């Protein structure tokens, strides 16, 4: 758009009243931009600023105290443990599913894709409920578990499994359209050159999906760390034991420790910001590649 404008000598055609057929009058443009920015300022920028402001309002020292206090450290450790299991599990699932869906034709493919989307539409609370019904004392496996002295609910395994369920679609959904768009010609070329399936995946497929994969993992990671509703239901909120970071924030907030709550929140906010920065980088990379392919 911009290049076509600069290509025309500005004085030559642009009289004060001349306007492109696909353009609105300047006053309207400015009003629309203003309205959109006001909306985004109110709903995006202010909530972000409030977190950062409140986190540091008592100074850097208070912030550091809040995030290094034993319960906070326990919450950080638990959260890291949970994502260290959930993200790799969903990574393997995502790559395997995307490979099957993108490189092969089979009946029921669209049904499979719809099922992968479902955890996204299910309320986190219902996700928690599903596993309470599965593992709880009055649930399907509860009696058997307690007879064998196994704890799933109100313990780490329960938290891991609801997080896995809640973040199941993210990597697969990122990779499926990407790999479908790549087609399979490069893989076929690699095979005709004598490469095995694993080598083809490793040297040809993986470098091509690298950026989408990175974003999928980062997004999955952010969502896993921030998972709240489902974890709230199955964790039992045992301080220092089954509180993940979001639950710790809730506890602090409900105890009126607002600065500490926002200090811990600022950690997760930073993670969210990193996530969207990486998304922008991936998109920038894709745009560049699309431009290269077009030339």
């Amino acid at each position, binding site marked *: 758009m911009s290049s076509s404008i600069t290509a025309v000598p500005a004085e030559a055609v642009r009289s004060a009243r001349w306007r492109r057929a*696909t353009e609105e*009058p300047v006053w309207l*443009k400015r009003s*629309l*931009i203003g309205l*959109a920015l006001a909306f*985004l300022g*109110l*709903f*995006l920028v*202010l*909530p972000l600023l*409030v*977190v950062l402001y409140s986190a540091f309002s008592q100074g850097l020292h208070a912030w550091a105290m809040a995030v290094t206090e034993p319960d906070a450290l326990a919450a950080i450790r638990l959260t890291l443990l949970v994502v260290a299991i959930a993200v790799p599990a969903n990574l*393997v*699932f995502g790559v*395997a*599913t995307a*490979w*099957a869906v993108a490189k*092969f034709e*089979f*009946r*029921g493919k669209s*049904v*499979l894709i719809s099922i992968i989307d*479902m*955890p996204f*539409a299910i*309320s*986190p*609370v*219902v996700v928690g*409920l*599903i596993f*309470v*019904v*599965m593992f709880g*004392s*009055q649930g*399907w496996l509860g009696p058997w578990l307690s007879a064998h002295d196994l704890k799933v609910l109100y313990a780490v395994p329960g938290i891991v499994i609801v997080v*896995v*369920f809640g973040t*199941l679609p993210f990597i697969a959904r990122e990779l499926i359209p990407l790999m479908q768009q790549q087609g399979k010609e490069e*893989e076929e070329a690699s095979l005709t050159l004598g490469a095995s399936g694993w080598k083809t995946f490793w040297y040809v497929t993986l470098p091509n999906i690298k950026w989408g994969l990175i974003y999928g993992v980062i997004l999955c990671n952010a969502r896993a*760390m*921030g*998972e*709240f*509703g489902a974890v*709230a*239901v199955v964790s039992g909120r045992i301080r220092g034991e089954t509180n993940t970071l*979001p639950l710790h924030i809730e506890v602090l*907030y409900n105890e009126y420790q607002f600065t500490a709550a926002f200090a811990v*929140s600022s950690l997760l906010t930073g993670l*969210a*910001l990193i*996530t*969207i920065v990486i998304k*922008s980088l991936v998109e920038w990379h894709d745009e560049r590649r699309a431009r290269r392919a077009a030339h």
Partner: protein
Amino acid sequence: MTSVNRTRSVIPGFGLTMGLSLFYLGLIFVIPVAGLLIYTATMGWPAFWAAISHPQVMASYKLSFTASLIGASVNLVFGGLVAWVLVRYRFPGKRLIDALVDLPFALPTAVAGISLVTLYASTGWVGQYLTLFGVKVAYTQLGVVVALTYIGLPFVVRTVQPVLEDLEAELEEASASLGASRFTTVRRVILPALLPAALTGFALAFARALGEYGSVVFISGNLPYRTEITPLLIVGKIEQFDYHGAAAIGTVMLVAAFLVLLLINGLQWWAAKRR
């Protein structure tokens, strides 16, 4: 459900990846969901009906449904506007704003919740000015709407944006050359082209809002019959070990989510057909 096409592909790994995928989905998703549905089925119709039609539950449906609908509608209008502005106009900070649109998707809901309530409380940055006009947001139904608008914000923007980018300028130029005013062109040429994508985004935002918990509990105040959303009710029932009551309401929500997904699939099919 799935069956392999008879013709074998030279690309290896179908059995391995498909097997892994189905096993994982079965273990993590299908069996647990079926577990909930069967659990609900064991309670019998009268008990089920009593659990899901209790006045307090009915009030929560009404709130969840209405607030989600309002939130999604706000996003339909403003999300469409934001997408338009981001695609069509140039202004400083555009890239940054574009990236920030995804924030509600990446930010943990609990963080969003405490940040929104701080902002809209009667002493908050925004709340103190609204109080001057007698508008209360925090701990009211309006607060629920605000939270549900926030978490649904990215969807309409992100579904409409690519369609708007792909829209051929020739269409608009043709319309203008045939004598249509700019307003007519937008109404008769551009909006119809955006409709399927916008509705898909609307439905996604609505689906997300229906089930939302984290961002709402802090700002809503959780008053029974007034500001209690359905997911909160389920949490309450689980905490009282009323598994059957929770499962019954959870099943209603599961069915609602399934219906919205079906609607989204239909919309996407429609959008693809129109391309």
